[in-house]
């Protein structure tokens, strides 16, 4: 595992996942294979409910597959204990969700500091990591603003900073602009790509927007529970 921010390769083989819907069982992923080089950026597109978020959750170790394997940096993460997974997520993976999921009781700076505090870093160390990131995204003057005092675009910028504060090897973004107006969406997406490139982080971006997806470089489509390359 990289704890120094060095990008890691991601390998997933034969991932399967199904959910119970009443008496029926819905198969969402039916043998997904995915291979990402260290530092690579890939977009995953597909219709609503096709399993994009489920795949992201499996790659992010938030959920376990019914079958198949996930390796990050050559390490089988689907075999780790819950405690080890928590530590792995904290040090290795950054998440950006469609709904920013900021903590409403904490201000912008505190939200970005939070992963470092979870890791056991001191408040000063966490602030030392968080402040430059927020300054980089133009939030230097909004550090003590609570999420309710920020616009949608600002919240998502804070969420991106929070995802990157531990210098993760892998960035997973689930519809990061899905809840924003076009102008804000463009700003946030540009920011995401810029920071990902600057940090050299391996990134998986789930999006509905084919235009944004193409800007990621490689685009994969999820349909019928399987991934396939998509061309323009």
């Amino acid at each position, binding site marked *: 595992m990289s704890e120094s921010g060095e990008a890691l390769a991601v390998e997933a083989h034969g991932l399967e996942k199904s959910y119970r819907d009443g008496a029926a069982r819905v198969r969402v992923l039916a043998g997904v294979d995915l291979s990402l080089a260290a530092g690579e950026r890939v977009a995953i597109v597909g219709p609503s409910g096709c399993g994009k978020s489920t795949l992201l959750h499996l790659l992010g170790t938030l959920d376990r597959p019914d079958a198949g394997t996930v390796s990050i940096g050559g390490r089988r993460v689907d075999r780790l204990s819950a405690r080890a997974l928590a530590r792995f997520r904290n040090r290795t993976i950054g998440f950006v969700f469609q709904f920013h999921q900021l903590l409403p009781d904490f201000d912008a700076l505190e939200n970005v500091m939070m992963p470092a505090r979870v890791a056991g870093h001191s408040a000063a160390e966490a*602030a030392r990591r968080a402040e430059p990131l927020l300054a980089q995204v133009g939030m230097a003057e909004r550090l*003590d603003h609570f999420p309710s005092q920020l616009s949608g675009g600002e919240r998502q910028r804070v969420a991106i900073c929070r995802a990157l504060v531990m210098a993760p090897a892998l960035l997973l973004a689930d519809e990061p602009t899905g809840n924003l107006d076009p102008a804000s969406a463009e700003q946030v997406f540009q920011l995401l790509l810029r920071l990902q490139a600057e940090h050299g982080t391996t990134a998986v971006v789930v999006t509905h927007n084919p235009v944004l997806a193409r800007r990621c470089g490689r685009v994969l489509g999820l349909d019928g529970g399987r991934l396939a390359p998509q061309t323009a």
Partner: protein
Amino acid sequence: MSAVRAAGSLGTRAWALPFPLLLAARYLRSGRRDAFVTLLAALAVGGIAIGTSALVVVLAALSGLQSFLRDDVLTRTPQIEITLPSGWDPAAAETLMQRLRAVAGVRSLSRVLRGRGWVRVGSGVRAGEMVGYEGSLPAFFPAPEPARGPGGEPPPAAGLWVGSAPAAAWGLEAGEPVELISPRPALSPFGPVPSAVRIPFAGTYRTGRTEQPDELRLALPLAAAVRLFGSQGMRLSVETAGLSEALMVADRLLPMLPAGAHLATWRELNRPLFFALRLEKSVMFVSVFLIVPVAAMALVTALTLLVAAKRGEIGMLRAMGATAGDMRRGFAYLGLAIGAAGVLAGMGLGATAALVLDRWRLVSAPGNVYFVDHLPFRLEIGDLLIVALSTGGMTLLATLVAARRAAAFEPVEALRA
């Protein structure tokens, strides 16, 4: 803005705390924004405070009353009483007494003889317990008041001592002979007749407030008691520096006693009373304690609602790497802070109420029924500890139930909320 300034500008010192404590501290503050959860938390704090204060007041009242009863009863009880084996040689008894007097902690040791008989007062006769004493009046006849004649003559050196209440009722005067009659028969030319002696009235001792009006206890010289009851059943009364010392001295005396002798301390002599007092306190404690679980339910509800409201945040924190244990501890600290506020408020409220009620004697009671004209309150460290531990324990239990729910969310489930 520098990192140092940022760390200092975080609004509270809580940021220096470990993560679970930090979470609890912030949720405690932010609880003010969620009116419903705040209301439930306030109800929980109020309920726990009321239950705790009720426990403190009730236990203080029982301790006060029991302390009064115990003191009153114990002043009339020998500290240690040894019953010698029947038929024991008086010379051997004398030797034993010499040895026992030499034991560390023994202040005085004297023979006493107990029996039941009648006292003739005027034209009437009353039954009562008669205690033959050796030397001076034993300490379990408290506050002796020697009777003096009209000219201030001293009382007889060895005479009859009567409780202050019956002595006043009978109108006894110093040196006045009083006839005591024993049921033990003495042979006469007319066949067996009850033994009788006449003893001069020497003085009074303080009648206990808890003594019943028909309860009569008389102290008479040992020689007169032997004439009335014989020398069988002779006992030794031992006095020490205090009640707790008596228990230690009893342990030292016990191995020195001959086979067939029986030693009883003030504790054994009053076992039924102490058992009743302890039972009463336990039953009252359990009855009043039932308020606390009800209040703890409100705490569980408040925390459970808070956990439900924070489900998305819990999911995000888990995604950031917080463990289930971190979440459990965070919500447990939060619940403990709320519960501790209730317990501390209740302890303070209850202790203040008990002190005020005792200082100004605000709870009156009919003296002829309860022996006291007001209810005394007495705060005891042991009682306060029991209240704090039991209410604190119940709060902890309620908190852990709710905190487990916070830990039970899988990250992906919580994020879907």
